[in-house]
């Protein structure tokens, strides 16, 4: 399978990236090269192989449901690009 400029545009939309025309053609070429290289995995029979998402034998790590102090709002807002009344401000969500 090979990737087209349209595929790259679609993936960029999913990834919330705005690409220049130059980036689009460069990524099309480079992603094709990388995915072509990755096709070597298809030569392996993995029908009866379990996937590894994680090397440690731990699942569903829980903690006790007790109240804990959260970070103070004024400190959290120190890094916010824009704020108002103790809240992070963003451009309009609804038109």
């Amino acid at each position: 399978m090979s990737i087209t400029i349209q595929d790259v545009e679609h993936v960029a939309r999913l990834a919330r990236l705005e690409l220049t025309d130059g980036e689009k053609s460069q990524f099309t070429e480079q992603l094709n090269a990388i995915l072509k290289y990755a096709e070597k995995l298809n030569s392996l029979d993995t029908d009866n192989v379990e996937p590894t998402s994680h090397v440690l034998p731990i699942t569903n790590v829980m903690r006790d449901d007790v109240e804990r102090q959260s970070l103070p709002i004024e400190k959290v807002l120190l890094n916010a690009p824009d704020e108002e009344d103790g809240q992070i401000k963003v451009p309009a969500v609804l038109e």
Partner: protein
Amino acid sequence: MALFDLRLQDVHNKLNKKELSVTELVDASYSRIGETDSEIKAFITLNEENAKQQAAALDKQLQDGGERGLLFGLPAGIKDNIVTEGLLTTCASQFLSNYNPIYDATSVRKLKAAQSVTIGKLNMDEFAMGGSNENSSYFPTRNPWNTEFVPGGSSGGSAASVAAGQVYFALGSDTGGSIRQPAAYCGIVGLKPTYGLVSRFGLVAFASSLDQIGPLTKNVEDSAYVLQAIAGYDASDSTSANVDIPDYTSALSGDVKGLRIGVPKEYLGAGIDPRVKEAVMKALQVYESMGATWEEVSLPHTDYAIATYYLLASSEASSNLARFDGVRYGVRADDAANLIDMYRKSRSQGFGPEVKRRIMLGTYALSSGYYDAYYLKAQKVRTLIKQDFDQVFEKFDLIIGPTAPTPAFRLGEQVGDPLTMYLNDICTIPVSLAGIPAISVPCGIADGLPIGLQIIGKAFDESTVLRAAHAYEQQTEHHKLRPQL
């Protein structure tokens, strides 16, 4: 410079005997940085004012006497993807050029508890994506052995800084080789612990199932001391392993008699620089002379590791880096028409080319219709790669080979060719996929550039890895060589 050649233990003794003050140590660190860093460019941010205040406070403690830990007063550098409260943490990205964390990573908190002194934040490939430091969005770090060459990456600033004698030790992070490969290129010791041994809390995530923090030091003993300080269970990291932490320095017996070493033929085959192969073979002779035995073994799925890694790591990265959207922290783009437009503009302006490429690859591999063919397939091959190691470790205590197939390459030599760049990681990536510990120690010099020996162990068996590395170091002089700066 001689001061920075001392072992941690020696510096510790000098401090205790009051032959040296913490202020003198910290001043020496900054003056060395002043002398060398315009050329090496290891640091993105210095913590000079705070560090000097801390040094004065620690010197007062010294006057009062009492017991102090081994890292007390020692100048340390921290890779810039490990968050430090009140000290800029950029991940070498323009996106985070203004990011001032409001908490410490667990590893940093532990170093602070041990009272080491944070000298500053070290350069890296942006978001730890790369193997040369050329992907830093600020400037490339140079190899102290020859500034025309890369220091490796992504922890290139960490490795170069230790090699240049600017700090006693540094923390780095390793996802596919990012501690071990720069340690090899810069002629120092770099340890990637078992996945889960050191808390990832406060490490800006690249690929969560692979990322691991570890020490970069000038010798194996120091590596054991730093690991001792940072290892251990952390409830703040849900992938932290709840295991007993042994006394790593007590393992450094110098005795490797009877140790069984497997040497993977895949790591010494085509593509390996003959000078690297020769250095590894010589190291194996050293082990033989100490009473260890070695045999050629096979890790048959090695050839599939890079493809597997780039699919999995990029997929995880595309998800992890979704948090950088210009809302809560980082640089927000101006003039956005609406919220989505703000995300797009901020991300497009904030991320560099390699980061975008990996986000694109990962998003594609996870996208509808391709998930099974790429992501799931790679997860299954990861199982096969892990099984390769499990099988060898049924008969052997350690696996030894090169850290990287070649010494450092020239700046600019591999830019624009991502696949070739990825192939530098052929000996380190399989180990990361298996989640097991490995150390790189200096084992030779080729045309003025260091070569690294990689010693790989069973999960949570850092003690045997360190013991073997330390025993080798006792028999050889490679780790004592220093770049001429």
